[in-house]
């Protein structure tokens, strides 16, 4: 069996499973945020009206709640949703509620790794499509709708059809100017936004072994944009060290068998890679940066679960050190812990000296919610994950998706820029 098959077999109490088997799996961790949380509360209210008991959750210690999409509250509906979430966590005894303005909080997917909330081998589900991110720790991680999350909260399990696995064998080493974001954009460009539909995208090979855990998080994060059920990176000692340094103990890895089967194998050579962007209006609409259209950018946005981890901010600082931005540039670290490290290690000074505005952790303008959305006809380069029409603001705005290095280099020139071409 491969990793995902092993995890699902263990979680469903079976000795082995194969693709297309339907299994009822015990869930290890569940996540809600300020959009899916109120949606789940609504489902609970409906169940209650049907006479179904929603008095207690299956296991509140396995649930955590993030405030990320609409914090800081820009208007009263968002503010009221935060109050609803607080009442919910209080009522059900959920202790892991990461609140805006009270120490560590941030984007839900970022908390999953920063706070070591998910372990390798876990079955982890969340009320958000980018739950896939956390597969980088070697867990089976996928997003669910509100009704399914409500079901898991009450019962602790859910059924899955065991997905087929596409194996991405990544060879070589990332060149200095190329990041994991470039690789995943390349893959999505090659396979299309539904190329991974209902499949696991598994990343392995010497290139992944050589990558940091944070780079693997970027890969798994955007498997969602390829339509995949989940993404997973083959876990190793780096994952153990990463989680242990964040307080986890007894971290055990689940890896595939030598004779594991894959539906398809794709190979990529990192040393041949170049910086890549996705043009409007699809993450699959990719081109190499040096062949990008010459457009006047209005803004560079460095944020989100995809592109504002500590490693991403370090890459941005490498470019911005001693330089000034030419266009409106915002950096929103994805969690307070990242913000704090950025401060301690002098990154914030580099950003502020360059003229950047540093904002609080939030999904913010990535989903066009608030905190720097785009006006009509504005063009943005962004380290986020989606560039559908209107995604980051006005329906007639445009977003180019890129790596943090490219977003920073472009902030300096005001045009889409390969970091190698920066003077």
């Amino acid at each position, binding site marked *: 069996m491969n990793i995902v098959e092993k995890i699902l077999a263990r979680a469903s109490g079976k000795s082995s499973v194969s693709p297309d088997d339907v299994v009822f799996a015990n869930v290890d961790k569940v996540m809600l945020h300020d959009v899916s949380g109120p949606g789940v509360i609504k489902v609970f209210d409906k169940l209650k009206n049907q006479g179904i008991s929603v008095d207690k959750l299956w296991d509140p210690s396995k649930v955590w709640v993030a405030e990320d999409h609409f914090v800081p509250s820009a208007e009263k509906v968002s503010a009221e949703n935060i109050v609803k979430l607080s009442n919910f966590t209080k009522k059900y005894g959920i202790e892991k509620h990461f609140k805006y303005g009270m120490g560590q909080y941030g984007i839900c997917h970022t908390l999953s790794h920063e706070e070591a909330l998910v372990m390798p081998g876990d079955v982890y589900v969340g009320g958000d499509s980018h739950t896939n991110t956390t597969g980088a720790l070697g867990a089976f991680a996928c997003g669910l709708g509100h009704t399914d999350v409500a079901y898991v909260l009450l019962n602790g399990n859910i059924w899955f059809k065991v997905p087929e696995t596409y194996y991405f064998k990544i060879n070589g080493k990332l060149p200095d100017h190329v990041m994991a974001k470039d690789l995943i954009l390349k893959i999505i460009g090659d396979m299309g936004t539904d190329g991974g539909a209902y499949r696991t995208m598994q990343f392995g090979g010497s290139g992944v072994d050589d990558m940091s855990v944070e780079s693997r998080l970027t890969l798994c994060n955007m498997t969602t944009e390829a339509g995949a059920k989940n993404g997973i990176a083959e876990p190793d000692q780096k994952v153990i060290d990463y989680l242990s340094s964040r307080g986890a103990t007894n971290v055990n890895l689940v890896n595939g068998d030598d004779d594991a089967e894959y539906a398809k194998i794709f190979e990529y050579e990192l040393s041949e890679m170049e910086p890549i962007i996705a043009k409007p209006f699809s993450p699959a609409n990719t081109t190499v940066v040096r062949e990008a259209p010459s457009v006047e950018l209005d803004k560079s946005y460095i944020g989100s679960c995809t592109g504002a981890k500590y490693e991403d901010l370090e890459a941005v600082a490498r470019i911005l050190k001693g330089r000034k931005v030419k266009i409106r540039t915002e950096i929103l670290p994805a969690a307070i812990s990242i913000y704090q490290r950025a401060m301690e290690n002098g990154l914030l000074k580099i950003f502020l000296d360059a003229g950047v505005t540093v904002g609080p952790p939030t999904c913010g303008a990535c989903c066009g919610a608030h905190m720097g959305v785009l006006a009509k006809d504005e063009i943005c380069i962004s380290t986020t994950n989606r560039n559908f029409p209107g995604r980051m603001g006005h*329906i007639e705005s445009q977003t180019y998706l890129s790596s943090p290095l490219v977003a920073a280099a472009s902030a300096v020139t005001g045009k889409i820029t390969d970091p190698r071409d920066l003077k």
Partner: protein
Amino acid sequence: MEPFKKVISIITPLDKVNVDTDQIVPKQFLKLIHKSGFGKFLFYNWRYDVNENLKSDFVLNDSKYDNSKILVTGDNFGCGSSREHAVWSLQDYGFSVIIAPSFADIFFSNCFKNGILPISLNQKTVEKLQQELDTIEVDLEKQIIKTSSEDISFKIDSYKKKILLEGLDDIAQTLQFEEKISKFERESKVPSVL
């Protein structure tokens, strides 16, 4: 949930692929959580201009489709975020059947939780259906779509068919067996997971 009955209606052709949930219901409405009333936000940016006037060139705004319950659209419908609001909008607007060559995974699953029937048919059949001007009939029981010229059969998982036909909701249905589930949990050999 209401039991799913035969749907007899003209189709609304939405000739687009990769329709993502940001287009089905834009982010500014995600803060709202009442399940009803989402219909007016459906395809918001395609239906309304900046002054919130209806755009005459968008198919849903053509009054001949006002009572249509069947949306026929392109590949990978419902991709993007997991927001269940997307399904709530389609349902509240009046759609109960969505036909496409393929659907995004989470969206597909969310449909069944809310009494919408998503049907995958091959590309050629979908293209032909998009040209259909007459009323068609979707018979879930028999798994047949009847058009003026032919009967098209479709596949559906038998469990999903049952929950739609009986108007059962996944959670409600499972919780009818709460006692058995608890007993199984107590006696089960499934290793407890931390």
